[in-house]
């Protein structure tokens, strides 16, 4: 049986769209519940992941609700109309599994959900761009190569093009992108979701203990 999710979004068109993408996914992703309030996700502990709209009410992004979900041990895939870098990185800092803008469609949302369910990193291009352009002094330190690969991923939305440009294999490109995500998981506020991500990355050999 495929993974199951809950959709928290106040926009019926978005809920309908995500439901359709999940139904068409192979294997299917089951949508257990959906609604405009965070309680929908808190009341459905069996769901493997939560698609979370950051803009539930007009005004400030719902960082508090995101924190509540993360503290309840939920794997949260933020699906937001905010496209600015600070919002994206703030969500990671709070313990979201990954962050997609609503300009990113099923080609990234479905893989992001699958990765989240397995506690594996998934960095869609726009999030990769945010990490590459992130100058914050308290942020993880990226190597020059990691930054270039992330920027290329942001620009091209194609791991094949990135691999071609830097004469790497697609798998190595994946490793670079995944490693940066783990660096971000290892920084800031602790959360069980972050710990799971790091533990899984160790198991998968994406990072080693010396790299932490």
């Amino acid at each position: 049986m495929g993974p199951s999710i809950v959709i928290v979004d106040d926009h019926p068109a978005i809920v309908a769209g995500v439901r359709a993408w999940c139904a068409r996914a192979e294997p299917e992703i089951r949508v257990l519940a959906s609604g405009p309030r965070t309680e929908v996700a808190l009341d459905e502990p069996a769901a493997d992941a939560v698609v979370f709209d950051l803009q539930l009410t007009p005004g400030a992004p719902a960082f508090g609700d995101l924190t509540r979900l993360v503290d309840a041990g939920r794997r949260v895939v933020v699906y937001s109309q905010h496209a600015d870098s600070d919002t994206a990185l703030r969500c990671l800092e709070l313990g979201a599994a990954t962050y997609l803008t609503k300009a990113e469609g099923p080609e990234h949302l479905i893989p992001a959900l699958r990765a989240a369910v397995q506690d594996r990193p998934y960095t869609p291009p726009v999030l990769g761009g945010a990490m590459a352009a992130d100058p914050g002094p308290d942020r993880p330190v990226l190597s020059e190569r990691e930054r270039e690969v992330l920027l290329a991923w942001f620009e091209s939305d194609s791991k094949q093009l990135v691999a071609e440009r830097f004469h790497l294999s697609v798998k190595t490109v994946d490793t670079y992108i995944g490693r940066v995500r783990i660096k971000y998981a290892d920084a800031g506020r602790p959360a069980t979701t972050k710990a799971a991500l790091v533990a899984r990355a160790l198991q998968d050999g994406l990072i080693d203990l010396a790299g932490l």
Partner: protein
Amino acid sequence: MSGPAEEAPCDLEVRLLRGLRIAQTVITLVILVGLGLPNLLAGASAFHPAWAGPLGWGLFVLVAAVDAVLVARHRFWGRARVPVALGVLALAVLTALALDPAQVAGPPHVGYGVVGWIWVLLFAGARLRGLVVLIAVHLLFLLGLLVASGRTDRITLVAFAVTAVGVTSFQLAVALAGSALRRVARQAAEAAESEARARTAEEVARTVHADREARYAELRAVALPLLQGIGDGTLAPADPEVQQAAARAAARLRRMFAEEGDAGDALAGELAALIDIAERRGVVVRYSERGRRPVLPPDAAGALLASAEAALHAARAAARVTLAGVGGAVVVGVVTDGAARVPVQDVADVGTSTVEAGGATWVEARWAPRS
């Protein structure tokens, strides 16, 4: 003494306290000149050495005068407060020690009542603990002097207590008034600030709402005719042209939903114009921007745009356009499903690269100033 973590007085506080400070300064100077000076002149012989009294008086006047200058300049004693207050205490102790023990707390005792006022001046705009401690220490010291010189008769002690309590309570009352004024000022400043915050939030909400309205209007113009046509059967979903139109509308809607942008500027605006042209040709364009960007020299901006234009021109059905600022560099990337021919440009600090894979062409132009 006042703690180091003491908050700096707010602007309103300075203005409100000013009237009170002027009054305090006048009181102090009147006491020093009108009361202290005649008494000192009459009783200068009570000091050993004789110049100790006038010197002490002069230094007290000096401190009061410096304070008057600070008041005029809307400033407070700040870090100098504690050292000067301690210096005044030392001065008060020394003049009292130089005084004939029989005259302690008597008319020639310069500083007896006035040091308290000087400390009130010094502690304007600060917490009062230090003031209270200094006054208490000073009075206890004088009491000690009286006892040491054997002046423990009831009349002397009662007279001392009456003047000490009388003068000190005046001083503390004025200082407390200042403290109350500060509290009022701070609350008023906070209220004004929170009102300003609320007004800003309202303004932001209004702008966001207007922006959203504008986008919904565009949505109605772009998507509604298409949806209506499909709904009433005049447009066939299988028709490639209808599909193209739908894809274009979808791309526009996505851009609208995404509220793009870390920083809108001229380069982003020009790029949007290029995207618009491509969309008119039926190309579905996805656009993202990231990072903070410096302002480019015009020729560099022109080179980046020329490269993006050439790449977009080659697009057949789909393109991805990105604009990024990374570590001082500005990067424009265009990925298309066509074979782009990028013009060779010789512009300082601008480099371009083209990568092809799996039927996609990625053209990147990067401005990276060497410095």
